[in-house]
């Protein structure tokens, strides 16, 4: 790739060309000129501007400090938000980057959740369990089993396009729901459920309040750190050869095929990676509540994740994270409504009640975002950023 070279000294022309080849100088930033990149690697870096470095560092510090000042109830919600973000990033990779519409995310989340629950479950319990509670065992295992399920589905994806694929992945959710409802040794059965995976880090139980920190504080830290790891990995996949292949397939799959991108291979990779993320999210999601039933993994869950990706902004990692937090925090925010808007009731027996309003809000938000801001929350952020970047000029 092109790199910046020091200009040769004037007398260099006389030197024989066989002397030592010019070596690229170490890339460096020039003070006061943030838009000038002196090397390709700098320009393509993860945090390629100073403001990004500062903002991300600030966000991480803020996130790590949050458990010390925020009440446990909200920490619990934010931890769920972190896990949902991992799942949404996974769906964003296959739907946002590779353009393969998947309504089957709930199925892969379920596969991960059950794998983790089985590995760490109580061997003497009512449901299957092997009693290996270490997080380092069940988390990768959940991801891998889900990824395997993704690879098994991929042959359909390579044969089908567009909405055909959407309906087929929807079928996966229905078939999965049936299997999970019926396989009682695994799932505990419909409406009954089973205990979720136990988060055990080097022998330390994170889901039990310790001497120093409460349960919710520990879980939030765990999920937050995992979210950072998963987000960075996803961002790196997105800007690598694989990620560029994904976007090429999304933009025009035949053209991508003509250019030598193996469609079958990269669609399989997309489904595998996305399912890996979904599996890990599923494994983690229920460690927070500690218990789950097979009825959770329905079409509604898939739609929720689609909503996260689209409201956040398809084809961006940060968008998926924003969307996940937005959708997870929305129900909590609507609970304040009855005190503000007089005609909305707080009980499920009232006629316009909070729960109805929540669903209407989900639906309306999906519609409004897709019509007016197809790039989602990320697009709004871009507008704000570009306004201030050029301020006081209009562009």
């Amino acid at each position, binding site marked *: 790739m092109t790199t910046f070279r020091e200009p040769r000294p004037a007398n260099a022309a006389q030197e024989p060309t066989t002397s030592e080849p010019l070596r690229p100088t170490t890339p460096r930033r020039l003070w006061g000129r943030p838009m000038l990149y002196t090397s390709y690697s700098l320009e393509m870096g993860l945090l390629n501007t100073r403001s990004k470095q500062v903002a991300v560092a600030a966000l991480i510090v803020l996130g790590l400090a949050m458990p010390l000042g925020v009440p446990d109830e909200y920490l619990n919600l934010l931890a769920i938000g972190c896990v949902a973000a991992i799942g949404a990033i996974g769906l964003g990779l296959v739907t946002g980057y590779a353009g393969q519409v998947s309504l089957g995310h709930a199925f892969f989340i379920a596969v991960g959740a059950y794998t983790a629950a089985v590995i760490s479950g109580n061997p003497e319990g009512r449901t299957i369990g092997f009693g290996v509670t270490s997080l380092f065992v069940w988390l990768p295992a959940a991801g891998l089993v889900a990824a395997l399920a993704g690879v098994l589905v991929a042959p359909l994806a390579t044969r089908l396009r*567009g*909405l055909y694929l959407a*309906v087929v992945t929807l079928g996966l959710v*229905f*078939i999965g729901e049936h*299997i999970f409802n019926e396989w009682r040794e695994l799932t505990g059965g419909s409406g009954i459920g089973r205990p979720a995976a136990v988060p055990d880090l080097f022998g330390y139980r994170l889901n039990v309040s310790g001497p120093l920190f409460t349960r919710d504080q520990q879980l939030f830290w765990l999920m937050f750190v995992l979210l950072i790891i998963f987000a960075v990995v996803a961002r790196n996949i997105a800007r690598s050869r694989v990620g560029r292949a994904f976007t090429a397939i999304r933009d025009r799959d035949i053209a991508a095929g003509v250019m030598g991108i193996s469609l079958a291979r990269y669609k399989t990779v997309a489904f595998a990676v996305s399912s890996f993320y979904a599996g890990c999210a599923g494994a983690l999601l229920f460690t927070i509540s500690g218990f789950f039933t097979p009825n959770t993994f329905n079409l509604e869950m898939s739609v929720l994740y689609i909503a996260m990706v689209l409201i956040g902004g398809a084809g961006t990692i940060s968008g998926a994270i924003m969307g996940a937090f937005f959708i997870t925090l929305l129900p909590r925010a609507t609970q304040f409504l009855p005190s503000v808007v007089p005609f909305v009731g707080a009980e499920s027996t009232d006629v316009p009640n909070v729960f*109805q309003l929540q669903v*209407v809000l989900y639906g309306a938000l999906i519609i409004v975002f897709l019509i007016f801001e197809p790039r989602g929350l990320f697009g709004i952020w871009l507008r704000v950023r570009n306004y201030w970047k050029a301020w006081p000029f209009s562009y």
Partner: protein
Amino acid sequence: MTEILQMISRGLGLGSVYALLALGFVIIYKSTRVISFAQPAFMLTGAVLVSYFTGPLGFFVAVPLAALATAALALGVERVAIRPMVGRPVFAVAIITIGVDLVVRVFATGLLGIDIRQVGDPWGLESTLIGGVEIQQRHIAMVVTTVVLVTLLFAFFRFTRMGLAMRAAAYDQEAALAQGVSVGAVFAVAWGIAGALAAIGGTFAAAGGSVEQTLGLTALVALPVIILGGLDSLPGAVLGGVAVGVLQELVAQYQYKFPSWLGGNVSAITPWVVMLLVLLVRPYGLFGTREVERV
């Protein structure tokens, strides 16, 4: 033998409801290239409206009235949420229909309330003896209604100006536009027809029982049906619907002979499994046309 015939009659009744719903999906798909996930909501709305109208007006007035009302609702939805999306990726439009479904379904279930509401059909669970086979009257009514509606639809597409315009728009939207076809009107009519079909399908799905909140799930069974028949094939939708209906009844009947590890209620997922198997062999369904792909 009579047992099998009886089963098939039940399957035909169920299948004709699926066929009505599938026709709605296919009509929308043909004109707008979008699968409308809002059909379950329209189905529920139609059935709920019938349950309100049927008391004062009687069943046979209530059904067309509810169908018209649902069609009007679908027209409104199309105008507000779908028309601004013309020319945008079909996936985005499909997701918008999911949003529409969520919103409309809340209002429909709100209208439904917590009381048991019935569509008040005159058939109930009565049955008649035809050639020694006991057939439920509601199943006969379903089949007859579907045959009449399908004939009307085929006549509409074949003989009317609007039908011709819709076929032209389905064939090539831009060319139709250049010939003076109002593609906007085509979209609207497609949504209206689909809404009315969903309402009638919903009414028949609730006949003999009561209107449930989960009624919309029946409409989702029409999805494997249309994939099976081919997304853009009207005959495929009808045949697929009837085939899936009969198959589902057969599976439900012979459930007890299946190995127990399959679990109960296998018939609920039969359509999806059949869809997966057919798609592995024929990616565009049984009657669907293969898309011509250009770079």
